[in-house]
């Protein structure tokens, strides 16, 4: 039965219901992203969006079909190459070149998938690795087109030309939203396919090809579809990367990146769209953040390696799987209540921060929201993430915490104060949130560390006071909501 934990959870609902939360999330990010982030971080997040799409294609092949392709980032390079070549060669609009480049990359993906029709598992992984390595050599030699003559379109000893941003997205802000639009389209396509007929056919093929054939599934057609789709969307990501800077770097698509993309998709979680988001953030945003703080980026490689090892040993759901598990246990009333109270607190604190000129409105709003979200989620997630290191570590940590908390609570009640049996856990959580979110915000928004800490901790304190005062009034409402939207796994206390 050990294999059961590796199986993906298949959420119920219609295809649209399955795609909807993702689309809403992307829409919100596209809407408020530019408002919150500086230009540098906005470009970083445009890159992240492209990587999320590329990672989504890896997840499609691995999570849904059980096939390992280590060449997805190389395919992104192919898409980017043709996109640049078409724009430089014919002067066609960017969108057209983007789509054509994606289609050509899809064709490459299809060719790549041809051996996969008879090959599985490790051999396919090694074969795609060889292809990615060969693509790297070719790209190193011919380079990416930059307006030069000849079929390679490479300028020799001259000014490199760049392609213009698309007409409807000339600025960084517009381009971020433009990328998010394509990301939503691409990921929506993947999720839609996963939730409908192709997804079921793929799932059956993953389980057993013999069973799939017996059930009347055309194995060849659906495998080819998966590889073409994955190739095309990876190519789209490459084209979007090309459009971001107007050119691509010859060293930008090494085989190491293809491998890293696969590895981090596993760390993020290949069975849920959030996994691709985590993978994109880990590849690009984490090194950028560390760089901001002057930490050597190589250490992030060591960290990725560790995370990969741990997540493979721990079963294969990754971070997204852990979060999805966690969500199963959260009551709906908490989400409603949290959203209302958080909204009030964060807007209030953000206005206060602007009033005292401590920091910008958007930054403060973001900071408070994240702090409260973490305050709500971290008690679970943080200890859940300990489970990442193994059940034994998690249990030992819980036991130690309980032991210490009990002693402290006894001490407090002996002194005549109100005892709290989770005091150590709560304190640790609040400290962790303060320092962690403060660290991130310090890098992203250039806010003073002290200011960030003050805002975070005051928001948590206000939240606590509100809860304390309004608890009797809220309780019946809570029960009503929970009765209406029951969750079978939620721990009703």
């Amino acid at each position: 039965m050990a294999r059961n934990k590796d199986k993906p959870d298949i959420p119920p609902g219609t295809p649209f219901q399955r795609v909807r939360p993702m689309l809403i999330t992307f829409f919100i990010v596209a809407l408020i992203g530019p408002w919150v982030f500086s230009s540098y971080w906005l470009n970083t997040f445009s890159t992240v969006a492209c990587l999320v799409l590329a990672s989504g294609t890896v997840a499609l092949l691995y999570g849904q079909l059980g096939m390992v392709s280590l060449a997805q980032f190389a395919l992104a390079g192919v898409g980017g190459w043709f996109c640049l070549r078409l724009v430089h060669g014919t002067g066609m609009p960017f969108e057209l070149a983007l789509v054509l480049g994606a289609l050509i990359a899809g064709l490459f993906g299809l060719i790549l998938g041809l051996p996969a029709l008879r090959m599985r598992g490790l051999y396919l992984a090694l074969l795609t690795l060889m292809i990615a390595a060969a693509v790297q050599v070719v790209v190193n030699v011919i380079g990416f087109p930059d307006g030069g003559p000849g079929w390679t379109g490479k300028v020799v000893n001259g000014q490199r030309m760049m392609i213009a941003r698309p007409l409807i997205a000339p600025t960084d802000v517009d381009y971020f939203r433009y990328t998010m639009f394509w990301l939503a389209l691409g990921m929506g396509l993947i999720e839609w396919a996963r939730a409908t007929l192709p997804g079921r056919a793929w799932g059956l093929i993953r389980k057993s090809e013999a069973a799939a054939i017996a059930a009347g599934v055309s194995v060849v057609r659906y495998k080819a579809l998966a590889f073409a789709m994955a190739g095309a969307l990876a190519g789209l990501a490459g084209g979007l990367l090309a459009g971001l800077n107007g050119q691509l770097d010859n060293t930008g698509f090494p085989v190491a990146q293809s491998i890293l993309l696969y590895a981090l998709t596993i760390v993020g979680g290949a069975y849920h769209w959030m996994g691709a988001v985590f993978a994109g953030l880990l590849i690009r945003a984490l090194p950028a953040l560390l760089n901001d703080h002057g930490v050597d980026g190589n250490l992030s490689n060591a960290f990725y390696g560790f995370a990969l090892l741990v997540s493979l040993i721990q079963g294969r759901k990754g971070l997204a799987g852990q979060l999805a598990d966690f969500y199963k246990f959260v009551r709906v009333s908490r989400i409603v209540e949290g959203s209302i109270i958080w909204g009030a607190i964060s807007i209030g604190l953000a206005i206060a921060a602007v009033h005292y000129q401590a920091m910008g409105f958007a930054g403060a709003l973001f900071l408070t929201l994240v702090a409260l979200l973490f305050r709500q989620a971290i008690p679970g997630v943080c200890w859940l993430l300990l489970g990442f290191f193994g059940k034994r570590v998690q249990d030992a940590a819980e036991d130690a915490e309980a032991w210490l908390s009990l002693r402290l609570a006894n001490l407090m009640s002996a002194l005549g104060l109100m005892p709290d049996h989770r005091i150590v856990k709560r304190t640790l959580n609040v400290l962790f949130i303060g320092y962690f979110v403060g660290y991130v915000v310090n890098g992203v928004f250039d806010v003073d560390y002290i200011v960030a800490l003050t805002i975070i901790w005051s928001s948590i304190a206000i939240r606590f006071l509100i809860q304390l005062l309004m608890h009797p009034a809220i309780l019946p409402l809570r029960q009503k909501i929970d009765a209406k939207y029951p969750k079978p796994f939620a721990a009703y206390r």
Partner: protein
Amino acid sequence: METLLPFIVVGISVGAVYALSGVGLVVLYRASGVVNFAFGALGGLAAMVCWQVIDLEYDDWMGWVAGVGVATLLSWVYGRFIAPSLTHQDRVVRAMATLGFALMIMGIAQWYWGDDPRRLVLPTDSDGIEFDGRRLISHTRVVALLFAAGATVGMLWLLAKTPLGLRMRALQSNRVLAGLVGVRVKRTDTWAWTLAGLLAGISGLFMGNMVRLNPTVLTFLVIPAMAAAMVGRMNSLTATVVGGLVIGVIESLLNLVPEVQRYGSATAFVVAISVVLWQQRHGIGLSRDNSHLE
């Protein structure tokens, strides 16, 4: 032939290092079913440690022992403590776990030693085989060739003649049944990892001397080595060595053709892809590839 000869000699000497790494990969894969992505990283670490020890003005031989020793030790640690928790996963997952190990080693080594230009000098560098009055290959490459030949013969002997080799072959054909008849699976596995670490360390020293002394570069040299091992279907040591040598020779001969010269470093991959596709047409799969049963 006169003009080709020097290129062939150089090619063989380059291919020997691919072959040496390929042998290490194949031995581990045969015994434990793991494709070791950390092979290059272990070799890179060995080269860096060796350089560091020599740089601290200890004797050369201490550097070599320290480098190879560290690689062997780490490989043993992985095989003894980490690999066992993954034995029941499928082989892709086990291969990817070694990738995690490789990233850890590479990240830490790169962080500690950085990108400074360095050279790992071996005493055999100073002299070499001459041809037409020009230095063709240094003695280091000859030594590497000898090591590759020695490792191949040694491993063939080990697998064919010794009790340990017998147990490894038992694991290769079926782990569960091997365990049932009394083979100590974990211990045999650990031995395979230790041997692989030893070979990784040795080939790492040669790679660090010939290619470039940089942890990241050395880590990803595992990919051409894998190409050599794929020619041998991750199974046949002889075919792996031949594959490595052929790749080296073709790569070297391509220097004669100016049009494709710059694509030379893709030789290993193109050879591997062609061989795999050809084998597939003839119904030859990866050894132990019983994924259709899973």
